């Protein structure tokens, strides 16, 4: 067993001092800072935090227990996190994990004797274009092979930059071409042009522009951005009591698009949020970033500091009297559910990430139960694109009902995985071709829309990727996931990983999802590993799926059966006992 390090509260003192006078909404940031001291959160530390922020100890305990990246048992300051989800699995993650385990002498979840290193296998790290990948503390690593493991563990393996392709690059125009840490560079290449333009317009005119642009939310729910901004603007409340939240939680397996912008062009997110703040009449900006994006965190922090120093954030922005807007960057702590908008608010408020019952909706009762716009990072990027190019030009891209561009996350068995910014209307096949085609003989299946999406077979590859086709043909565009599987992939393994993901990430609030994701996982696991399906398993999956889909409280449970049932429907043979069943495949 690991020797618990002696608890040194002296290092904590100055941190607590900075937080004195604040309340529960500072709980997550303080837990992060406190954990950085010794790698975990001993009892004494939690008690001191409770006293400082005036939060009941039971509640602090509940919060620490909820988030995977908070530890109340001895854990090293350096955690090695290796992705075990589909894209990485197909690209050789099992062999990399084996090499790491041999080298460290640790199994997943274990900490070294000397307490200096903890090793974990984790869900999708949002870097699928660099599969297989891992984090060494705050250092990212991609395209790993067993031979790279030494360099990776020593912290000298190079950090990969996002891979961005497609065209025309509108929302990602600057990405990869400018120094993401330089405000001067950003300004030189058109940065803050949209905000300057916005300030020459009345908020009402910007709203009608946004409505005319037909930009739908890129986070999955496809709500029109113009309408959302207008509803929040019209909600009663002073600008000091309204919020603009950028949803940068990006944790759905196969999704990595927002990271590309935040790492390569972080100022553009701040600009878009300021435009939203001006338009809506909201003074508080928040970015909620998933905890596993250390580099995006650094680049966004740097950008916020520089933008503030230059007067792009703060009071009377760009000399406009009364236009106040600032941004607080918040780091998640390992919980996919916190991408759900109301769970995200709860997380910022210092609670367990339990989704709220809707209505009321965020536009009137959002963060701190005040009027709130919450938008996906890509949605926000689209709004500045529209401002810069005008509604007419925007409509020249894409189709009539789906104007503009979309970021697709192409991953899996293709030659050139990456973020593809393309106009709406390309087919799945065209995107796969753009990505260099399938590795292997042929496409066996494509997962569209993410873990919460559906599988399609090779006969449906000519489906155009538009909102109208998505509606007509019953597949989600979702967060733009296109994960490709060739003939060599055992789809049951992929189903198992998706089921494992939902069971791991269900918040546990409502019964159909908390119980259903677990039972779904057990059935899929039995099919894959323990001798194949039993009679009745398909019916059970269908009943569980029905209960989850129709009665769950939030979108997680409502979509947790989608991909799995789509596979069962399309390929009934997956649920038939056969000779390949019963073998033991590599775990986790």
């Amino acid at each position, binding site marked *: 067993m690991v020797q618990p390090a002696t608890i040194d509260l002296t290092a904590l003192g100055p941190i607590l001092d900075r937080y004195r006078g604040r309340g529960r909404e500072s709980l997550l940031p303080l837990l992060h800072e406190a954990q950085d001291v010794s790698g975990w959160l001993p009892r004494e530390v939690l008690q001191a935090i409770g006293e400082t922020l005036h939060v009941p*100890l039971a509640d602090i305990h509940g919060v620490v227990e909820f988030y995977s990246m908070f530890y109340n048992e001895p854990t090293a300051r350096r955690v090695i996190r290796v992705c075990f989800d589909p894209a990485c699995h197909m690209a050789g993650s099992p062999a990399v994990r084996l090499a790491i385990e041999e080298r460290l002498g640790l199994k997943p979840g274990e900490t070294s004797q000397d307490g200096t290193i903890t090793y974990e296998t984790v869900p999708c790290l949002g870097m699928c274009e660099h599969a297989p990948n891992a984090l060494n503390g705050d250092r990212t690593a991609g395209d790993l092979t067993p031979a790279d493991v030494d360099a990776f563990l020593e912290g000298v393996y190079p950090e990969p930059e996002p891979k961005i392709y497609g065209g025309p690059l509108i929302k990602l125009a600057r990405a990869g071409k400018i120094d993401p840490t330089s405000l001067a560079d950003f300004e030189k290449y058109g940065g803050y042009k949209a905000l300057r333009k916005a300030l020459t317009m009345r908020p009402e005119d910007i709203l009608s522009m946004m409505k005319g642009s037909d930009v739908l939310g890129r986070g999955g729910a496809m709500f029109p951005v113009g309408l959302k901004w207008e509803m929040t603007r019209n909600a009663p409340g002073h600008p000091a009591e309204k919020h603009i939240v950028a949803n940068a939680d990006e944790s759905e397996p196969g999704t990595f698009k927002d990271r590309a912008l935040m790492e390569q062009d972080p100022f553009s997110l701040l600009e878009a949020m300021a435009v939203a703040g001006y338009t809506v009449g909201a003074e508080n900006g928040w970015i909620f970033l998933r905890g596993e994006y250390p580099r995006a965190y650094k680049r966004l922090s740097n950008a916020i500091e520089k933008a503030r120093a230059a007067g792009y954030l703060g009071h009377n922005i760009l000399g406009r009297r009364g236009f106040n807007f600032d941004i607080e960057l918040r780091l998640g702590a390992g919980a996919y559910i916190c991408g759900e908008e109301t769970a995200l608010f709860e997380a910022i408020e210092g609670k367990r990430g339990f989704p709220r019952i809707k209505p009321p909706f965020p536009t009137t009762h959002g963060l701190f139960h005040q009027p709130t716009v919450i938008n996906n990072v890509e949605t926000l990027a689209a709004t500045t694109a529209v401002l810069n190019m005008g509604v007419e030009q925007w409509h020249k891209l894409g189709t009539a009902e789906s104007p503009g561009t979309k970021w697709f996350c192409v991953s899996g068995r293709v030659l050139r995985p990456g973020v593809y910014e393309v106009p709406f209307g390309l087919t799945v096949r065209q995107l796969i071709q753009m990505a260099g085609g399938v590795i292997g003989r042929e496409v066996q299946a494509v997962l569209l829309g993410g873990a919460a999406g559906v599988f399609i077979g090779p006969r449906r590859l000519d489906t155009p990727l538009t909102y109208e086709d998505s509606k007509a043909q019953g597949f989600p565009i979702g967060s733009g996931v296109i994960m490709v599987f060739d003939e060599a992939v055992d789809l049951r393994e992929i189903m198992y990983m998706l089921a494992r993901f939902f069971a791991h990430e269900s918040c546990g609030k409502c*019964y159909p999802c*908390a119980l259903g994701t677990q039972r779904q996982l057990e059935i899929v696991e039995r099919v894959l590993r323990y001798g194949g399906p039993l009679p009745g398993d398909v019916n059970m999956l269908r009943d569980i799926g029905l209960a989850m889909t129709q009665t769950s409280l939030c979108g997680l449970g409502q979509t947790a059966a989608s991909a799995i049932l789509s596979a069962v429907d399309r390929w009934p043979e997956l649920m038939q006992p056969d000779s390949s069943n019963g073998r033991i495949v590599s775990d986790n």
Partner: protein
Amino acid sequence: MTNMVTLTIDGLPAIVPAGTTILNAAASIGIEIPVVCYHPHLTANGLCRVCSVDIGRRLQAAACVTTVAEGMVVNTQTKDVVTARRTILEMLNSTIDLSEAPHLQDLLLEYDADTERFDGMERRESPVHDDNPFYLRDYNKCINCWRCVQVCAEDAQYTFALSFDGRGFHTLIGTFEGDGMMDTTCVFCGQCVGVCPTNALKPKRQFLLEQGVDPDDIFRQTRRGGKRRREPVAEN
């Protein structure tokens, strides 16, 4: 005058004040929608979803937390509604020891639940906590209805002794760092025991009586003796 709303429930008209839940609207015309987590005096969180009904949409609506709308057409017993209800109950029964939850036993019967359907699958198990003279906590019987947590917090007592361990399927009611109740902020008001629907929280007297312990002994063991940790009573 309050705004009245007209809707149809199982083919019958109902006229209720705006803001009424579907659950109460149905009750007002004699239609009973099953509930598990709902408690009329506590904040409704829409947890069990057993009260879900068809309102003509892709998603069903949890009747205890959904308010009525003009012209709404509610069906409380469609095929999908019944399937979902039965499946939730079956999954619950395969996870939790419901033997001392009479209301859930009734629902299992009423919905023709197959109580062996998910046999052999993981149950939510934890040791019985016998750490104070007043009540036992047996979370093997706990359905996570949150009632105890709520009465301990803003719904009544503002004591904040209870919260959660883990998440998802593995969520359990818990205390700070798993401390025994004597070491928490608990004031032993007993409200949690009073609202628990499954006997997961049980008065110690009742437990000892069930074990056949002599009433004199029970008196000695459950007498209030100041706030300090007690040796657990031996279990068998």
